[in-house]
């Protein structure tokens, strides 16, 4: 036990850890938003609702089929991803030629529907979801106590984030994706099924959100409004980082989570607003965003 700037190390590192956890959710969600925006030219407002839906599905399959955390971590993203692909095929695909803002409005409506249904089924209060047995407990690192589950969340989201980056930037599939983002007509002329690629991209982006949701379930409770609160912060993260770069989204997400955590230690009143303040400063200094290529 020692002190840094008059703050006990336990409190400091504890908040730092919470910051990293929040940061991993910011990173996963802003990554999904960036991938979807790249292919569909739509800002997916229902991203937060789909994150909540992931946690919600995990809760439901635990209640009704007894499947625990680990199966849920795979099943819930698949279910949410499939519903996402249905949404893309039945609704979003009609909007690609319209102004961007219609996509935002439609997905905002979808978010209201998903959140409303969840409130009717769950109630507004949060429901607990227990940490899986294999990850209960924690270890003492000397300067702080590290719960195993939180360590897992950080490692898992880092893995997923860099896995996504690798697939998009370093594989053939990723090359198709990047090419289709730049010029869909030309890529189609080469015989690549771009509409299918778009559907899969949306499904994948949404599945990422659901994956984050399942991981969040044991940390926060499963509650209908867990997504809408988060998505607005994630929007600010996206404005700060810019959606041009995958790596940028990851770095910005984790970085802002940590800054938010530190603010909780040194200036708790501002912890809710610090990310928005940073957004305002970035807009003044570097309007295109930290990693943005164009407006």
């Amino acid at each position, binding site marked *: 036990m020692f002190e840094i700037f008059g703050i006990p190390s336990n409190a400091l590192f504890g908040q730092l850890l919470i910051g990293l956890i929040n940061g991993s959710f910011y990173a996963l969600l802003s990554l999904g938003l960036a991938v979807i*925006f790249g292919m569909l030219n739509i800002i997916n407002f229902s991203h937060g609702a789909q994150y909540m839906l992931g946690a919600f599905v995990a809760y439901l399959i635990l209640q009704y089929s007894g499947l625990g955390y680990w199966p849920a971590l795979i099943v819930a993203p698949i279910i949410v991803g499939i519903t996402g692909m249905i949404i893309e095929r039945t609704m979003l695909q*009609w909007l690609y030629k*319209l*102004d961007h803002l219609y996509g935002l409005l439609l997905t905002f409506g979808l978010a*209201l529907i998903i959140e409303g*249904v969840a409130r009717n089924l769950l109630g507004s209060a949060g429901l607990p979801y227990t940490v899986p047995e294999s990850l209960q407990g924690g270890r003492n690192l000397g300067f702080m106590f590290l719960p195993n589950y939180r360590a897992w969340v950080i490692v898992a989201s880092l893995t997923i984030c860099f896995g996504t980056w690798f697939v998009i930037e370093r594989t053939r599939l990723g090359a198709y994706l990047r090419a289709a983002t730049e010029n869909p007509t030309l890529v189609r002329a080469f015989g690549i099924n771009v509409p299918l690629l778009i559907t899969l991209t949306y499904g994948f982006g949404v599945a990422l959100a659901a994956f984050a949701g399942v991981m969040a379930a044991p940390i926060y409770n499963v509650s209908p409004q867990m997504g809408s609160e988060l998505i*607005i912060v994630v929007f*600010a993260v996206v404005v700060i980082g810019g959606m041009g770069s995958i790596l940028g989204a990851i770095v910005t997400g984790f970085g802002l989570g940590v800054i938010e955590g530190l603010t909780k230690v040194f200036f708790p009143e501002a912890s809710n607003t610090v990310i928005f303040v940073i*957004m305002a400063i970035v807009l003044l200094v570097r*309007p295109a965003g930290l990693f943005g290529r164009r407006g």
Partner: protein
Amino acid sequence: MMEQRVSDPLVDPSATPPSALRKQSETIAFVVMVAALIIAPFFTYPLFLMQAMCFALFACAFNLLIGYVGLLSFGHALYFGWASYLSAYAAKTWGFTPELAILAGIATAALLGLLAGSLAIRRQGIYFAMITLALAQMMYFFALQAKFTGGEDGIQAVPRGHLFGVIDLRNEMNMYVLVLVIFLAGFLFIYRIIHSPFGEVLKAIRENEQRAISLGYKTDRYKLVAFVLSATLAGAAGATKAIVLQLASLTDVNWPMSGEVVLMTLVGGLGTIFGPIVGSFVILVMQYKLSVLGEWVLVIQGVIFVSCVLLFRRGIIGELANKLRIRL
């Protein structure tokens, strides 16, 4: 790309040319609206009508941005809610007369609009919407933590007071006339803006900002002025609402309120003069009628959003004008 966009009312080229028929039908609609609003309090609750007029003005202010400049502000609750707080606080704690309280609210909204607007116009399109939403959320947290807003309780039992120190606003009819005057003044002001040379430049920015820039217009300044005007009028609506309902609360500054004004405008018709008014009455009536359904109202609102975007992008007024072959 542009040819495929004609079904989109925001970039519909036929939306601009003013015709005699349009002017005539607008005059008729305006007279009908004023007449209806004068008779209505004898048939239905004045309090409901006053609330609806406040929301209608709010939606008209929002529509000024999205319909005529093509800027989607997803954070208009910021100006509505903070004007409402300031007007309520001025009337209750400082003992301002209602007109001064409302002016205090309007001034607050104008100032906040200037600050938020000058940040938001630094980015275009979809980023603009996200920035306005994020800034509004930031100010929501300020409202939640600040002492003077009363946190979760809000500012309750705001005195309506005496207009100019003379006319007693506790009388429902006096209050009604004041709200009607504010609403109509706001509406006519917006109408004047849209049909002024300034408004023509705004529409040019909506159609093609690059071209407006190449013609020598400083589009950023135009956008900022439009933003401040819109925020100010939204503030007028919020400040008046605080006096009418004698309440300012967190609901007015939170993001669902921003979503609601988008919904009202979308339902009525983006970029139509009367659309936001019709939309806000429709949505408010729906909320009253369906309030027994509790949380399902949220789902219904979501369904309306989705179906408007997919099926009726012109909104009620837009579809009506299309049926009657009136060019808006």
